[in-house]
């Protein structure tokens, strides 16, 4: 159970003078159960990449395999792939359309052709997972706050019970509190259900705390693909492409420069706090 990308290329507006290479020979292996962060500057190809993973965009060349089967094969059922690889777009609240929250979440599972009971059960389950209380089920989705709307929209994809969940900038436009809540919920979801999660973001601070692996995209190419600690070691290269390591990495670097033995392992604020305390006590 995994997604494999082999020499995937994608060109926007091929055969026109305005052709842009959005993906350039991308090779990736996405195994089950990983929490992956995809980081890149605007226009680095990260959104294009994730739209390939559930077949919304078709690679100009190269192959993508889902569980060993090419998704561009003749007999491959795209609909099945889309139910297994859930994609939450940027500003997903813009796709809400039903008269109440509950019916909107039911839209996805209903399209899978499930029975009414199954659909409702899945919708309830999904809403619970994103922390929407039952009292809101029959409110219009347009009356909710921004953060709540977004959680309802995420539930709409979760209700299809995908094996892989991709979130494209799920925290864009949210306040810090809303951001932390959503990220925390996604993390809980991943540890509880063993879902594979791909989190697209342009902010290292967002993902550093939660992910197992970071893929850095730049100009359509995979620039780094490693555990967070190793990726953050390349601070210079990251800065050259308009990204930055998490703020805490800079703090730790500065401390080391001034002779504090804080070690090089800390990538999150909590770890850094511990490391500094350890250093001060010693």
């Amino acid at each position: 159970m995994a997604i494999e990308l082999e020499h995937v290329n994608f060109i926007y507006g091929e055969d026109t003078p305005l052709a842009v290479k959005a993906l350039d020979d991308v090779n990736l292996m996405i195994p089950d159960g990983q929490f992956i962060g995809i980081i890149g500057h605007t226009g680095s190809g990260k959104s294009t990449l994730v739209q390939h993973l559930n077949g919304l965009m078709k690679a100009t060349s190269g192959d993508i395999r889902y569980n060993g089967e090419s998704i561009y094969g003749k007999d491959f059922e795209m609909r099945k792939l889309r139910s297994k690889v859930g994609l939450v777009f940027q500003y997903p609240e813009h796709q809400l359309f039903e008269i109440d929250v509950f019916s909107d979440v039911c839209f996805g599972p209903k399209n899978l052709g499930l029975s009414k009971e199954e659909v409702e059960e899945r919708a309830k389950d999904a809403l619970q997972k994103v922390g929407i209380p039952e009292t809101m089920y029959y409110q219009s989705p347009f009356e909710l706050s921004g953060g709540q709307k977004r959680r309802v929209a995420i539930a709409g994809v979760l209700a299809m019970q995908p094996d892989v969940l991709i979130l494209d900038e799920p925290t864009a436009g949210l306040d810090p509190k809303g951001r932390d809540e959503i990220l925390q919920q996604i993390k809980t979801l991943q540890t509880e259900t063993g879902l594979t999660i791909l989190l697209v973001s342009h902010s290292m601070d967002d993902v550093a705390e939660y992910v197992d692996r970071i893929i850095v995209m730049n100009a359509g190419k995979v620039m780094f693909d490693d555990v967070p600690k190793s990726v953050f070691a390349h601070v210079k290269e990251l800065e050259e492409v308009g990204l930055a390591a998490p703020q805490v990495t800079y703090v730790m670097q500065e401390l080391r420069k001034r002779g504090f033995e804080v070690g090089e392992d800390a990538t999150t604020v909590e770890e850094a706090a511990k490391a500094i305390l350890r250093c001060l006590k010693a």
Partner: protein
Amino acid sequence: MLRDITLGQYYQTESVIHRLDARVKLAGTLIFIVSLFFFKNYWGYLVAALFLAGVIKLSRVPFKFMVKGMKAIVFLVIITVLFSLFLTPGEALVSLGKLTITKEGLNTAITTTIRLSMLIIGSSIMTLTTTPNNLTDAMEKSMRPLKKLHVPVHEIAMMMSIALRFIPILLEETDKIMKAQIARGADFESGNLLKRAKAMVPLLVPLFISAFRRANDLAMAMEARCYRGGDGRTKMKPLIYQKRDHLAYVCLLVYFVAAVVIGRLHF
């Protein structure tokens, strides 16, 4: 998916035609279209074609690019041609079972094809060489006398430029919402007519909401910049006739007289 529409698009380049006052181009297009309907022989069309070719050459817009935008209306032309070919009464030329092609029908088919394609190329030169903003400015200025009759000229022009500006934005938005719903298992492509119409709901509702949201934001942004209608409003780039514009009017007049005279001669 939806981004390949070129009809009505602006083509950025540097040319005499681009630099002309938008009012000249507006009037020129009108004169050209009117002239097409005066012709009684094919010589008139030849003069019009030569004039058109000259303008295209001067505009520096690649002819290929122009034709690309015309693919959408080929269907319309074919239907018109078929109807006039088979349904015009007159002297029979060829009979195919119940269908007969008449001499008059053939004549009408040829002239409508020529007229339609020249009409479309002629007006697409205007949109290709004039920015939408300039075009609406020109319309506003040319329609100004109507203000005496309490026609809200400025408001109409403003609405037009906003509408034009929003076309690409809403196309992109449609594309995005469509993809988001497909990712949720929506199916826009199969089923009968009723099923397909129903499938449009998850696309249209968010699209309308987003259009209203954008309209609201735009209205707010305009008010924040103290927009209050056209009275006393000045322009950053006012339309003022230059020497080349007067020259262009003379050329247009010469073309019109020459084409109509030649087009109505009896040989």
